[in-house]
């Protein structure tokens, strides 16, 4: 057991650092060519980096002041790109991965629907085979970055005669295809627009854009969400993307607000929780380095990390009193760092409610942990074992009242 992290003398760190020093302000093409966009991927895409090297690279992006690709194009370099690597055709990989890694193509994930958020498998968007195309009709919602994306990974129902989990398939959709309409959602933060609705009106996708096989859709969704949740376990506001408890405590000390005995105790409690989460992240990292298969611990981590972030930004805001209600990003001093969107406590707080909703609500995560980690009995879903096309019939409605 060794809790020391790779320090400034680590040769791998020095190698990455010297590259950033030789290439100040690199383009994302440069970054992709160096294998740093998705360092955990195998060559020629990445460096087959183990989690420790990934950690080093993440740190060096921060040191160089460069926003890492996973902040800009997370869907591509994280959850969905990996699906193409594992399940895509050679032609799909060649066509879509290089522009994804160089961030020329921004990807989005077309999963949730108005009638199915937590019940994600209740997808109503259909994909009907018509010659050498699939024809898509339906609607998605809560799609991050759909307004910027050129590629969407779409889940649609290819077979309604099967049960709801079995009739799903995934497609690689060119977002510029006729019939795709993107409409922004103005969320309660009133700040930058994060989410969108996406409408499909007889959208034609060539058959060679099917990801995996027909009916693989749900299995892919599970893999992708697992990857996504594991990435959201870092301690900090908004899934670990915003400032951390360490930074909150430093800010409270600098402003003198730490002297309030109640703030003080709560700050300590959150600091400790943040440190425990950090240890959990590192332990999962070590498990993967040691070859222990990545399990469901991502769910476990996110389950604490999401409310942890909410509590942090809540305390930061409360330390301001009534002034916290003003639209004003200046809450507590923060180090000059790349937080992406969530660069201040104010936005992190007002965006906060989303963090126990997005990528599985807190309640769905708890179900997953209870059922798959603890082995407690499954919830009853009267719609799970019948053909999807029968679900809306009155008989089932009565059962599920």
């Amino acid at each position: 057991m060794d809790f020391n992290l790779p320090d400034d003398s680590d040769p791998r760190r020095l190698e990455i650092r010297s590259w950033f020093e030789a290439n100040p302000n690199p383009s994302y093409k440069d970054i992709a060519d160096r294998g740093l966009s998705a360092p955990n991927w195998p060559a020629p895409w990445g460096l087959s980096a183990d989690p420790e090297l990934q950690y080093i690279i993440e740190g060096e992006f921060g040191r160089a002041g460069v926003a890492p690709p996973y902040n800009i194009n997370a869907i591509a370099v994280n959850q969905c790109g990996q699906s193409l690597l594992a399940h895509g055709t050679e032609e799909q990989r060649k066509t879509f991965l290089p522009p994804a890694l160089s961030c020329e193509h921004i990807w989005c994930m077309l999963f949730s629907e108005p009638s199915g958020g937590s019940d994600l498998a209740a997808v109503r968007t259909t994909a009907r085979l018509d010659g050498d195309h699939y024809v898509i009709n339906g609607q998605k919602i809560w799609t991050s970055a759909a307004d910027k994306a050129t590629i969407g990974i779409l889940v649609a129902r290819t077979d309604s005669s099967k049960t709801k989990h079995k009739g799903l398939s995934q497609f690689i959709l060119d977002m510029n295809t006729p019939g795709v309409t993107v409409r922004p959602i103005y969320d309660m933060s009133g700040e930058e627009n994060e989410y969108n609705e996406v409408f499909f009106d007889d959208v034609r996708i060539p058959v060679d854009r099917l990801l995996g096989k027909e009916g693989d859709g749900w299995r892919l969704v599970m893999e992708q969400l697992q990857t996504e949740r594991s990435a959201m376990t870092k301690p900090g506001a908004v899934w670990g993307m915003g400032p951390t408890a360490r930074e909150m405590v430093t800010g409270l000390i600098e402003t003198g607000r730490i002297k309030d005995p109640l703030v003080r105790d709560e700050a300590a409690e959150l600091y400790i929780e943040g440190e425990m989460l950090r240890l959990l992240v590192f332990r999962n990292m070590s498990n993967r380095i040691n070859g222990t298969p990545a399990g469901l611990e991502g769910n476990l981590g996110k389950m604490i990390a999401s409310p942890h972030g909410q509590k942090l930004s809540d305390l930061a805001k409360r330390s301001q009193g009534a002034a916290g209600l003003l639209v004003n990003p200046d809450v507590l001093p923060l180090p000059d760092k790349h937080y992406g969107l969530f660069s201040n406590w104010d936005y992190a707080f007002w965006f906060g409610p989303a963090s126990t909703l997005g990528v599985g609500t807190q309640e769905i995560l708890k179900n997953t942990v209870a059922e798959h980690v603890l082995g407690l009995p499954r919830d009853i879903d009267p719609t799970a074992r019948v053909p999807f096309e029968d679900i809306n019939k009155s008989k089932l409605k009565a059962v599920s009242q």
Partner: protein
Amino acid sequence: MDFTLNEDHLALRDSATNFLNKEVDLSVLLTHERTVKDADYDGLWQKIVGLGWPGIVVPEEYGGLGMDYIDLIMIIGEMGRTLAPAPFFGTLAGAWAIEKAGSTAQKEDLLQRVTGGELKLCLALSDANGQFGEGVSVTSEKNTHTLNGEKTFVVDANSADKIVVMTQGDTFFIVDKNAPGVSVSFLPWRDITREVCSVSFDNTRAERLESTGAGNWQWIKDRLYLLLAAESAAGTAASLADSVEYANERVAFGRPIGAFQAIKHQLAEIAAQSECAIAGVQYAAWALSNNDEKASLAAAMAQAYASEVYKTATHRNIQVYGAIGFTWEMKNHLFYKRARANSELLGSARQQREEVINWLEVNEAA
């Protein structure tokens, strides 16, 4: 870096698991009016001595095994998981006081005997108000020291052969339990898996541990935090596993109660906190083993976090069982009480959180 346990750690833990599963029987305590005196404290201790555990972290130069604190928590965790009634806490606490404050001669003599299982110890810390270092006054004339006063909440004092006493100014004395003027009485302590006593001294002659001064208590306290936190983290995991097992078995409204979200969500939360507690304890053990600059911080964090989680988990465990979990004949209350005891014995979580913030103010503020 490697944040995971290696095979040696796991083997050590497994051997402790097997031994304690076989030897610890809490059922003897599950009859109304039973107390810690019924727990066969000394019987279990004799078997523990046979395994060499008393010397596990005693440095090799004093005859011990010189293993590190990660090894130690493999054993302490299992003792916490099984609520093993034996005077290990007191012996470790006393041995650490001697290791930190004793002269070479004192260490050579006393720690050797601890390792051999000939000497059980306890560490008398606080007065009746829980004030550390208070309660006992010292009169010194040349090399003769005389103690007067009373210490309370002394773990394992009844079993101990010698009592280590902390007085003001980070100074420690050692006294034979049978010395004139020493009187030990059991306290009506709710956690009946542990001997907790008061010890009074009436003109009792004592030997001073040589090294005095600032830092002794902090060094010892860090280790005692680790002990309690390791017990609490393992106890939390045990309590959770017990809740899960019961929720899978107990049927109501035609389904195992674990199928209901009101129950499964609470257990899921405890599962996550339990993992965090385990990680925090292992980190503290590593930091103390390596004299890491953050060792005191790590120990205080582990104790604050694990003690709170343990209380939550054991209360939830009773709730999952329903009314039967509220009876003396079930073991649920033993864990609930241990959790309460572990969170107060060395000061509350609030106090450890104050230590954490204080550490950050001193060490991290610009």
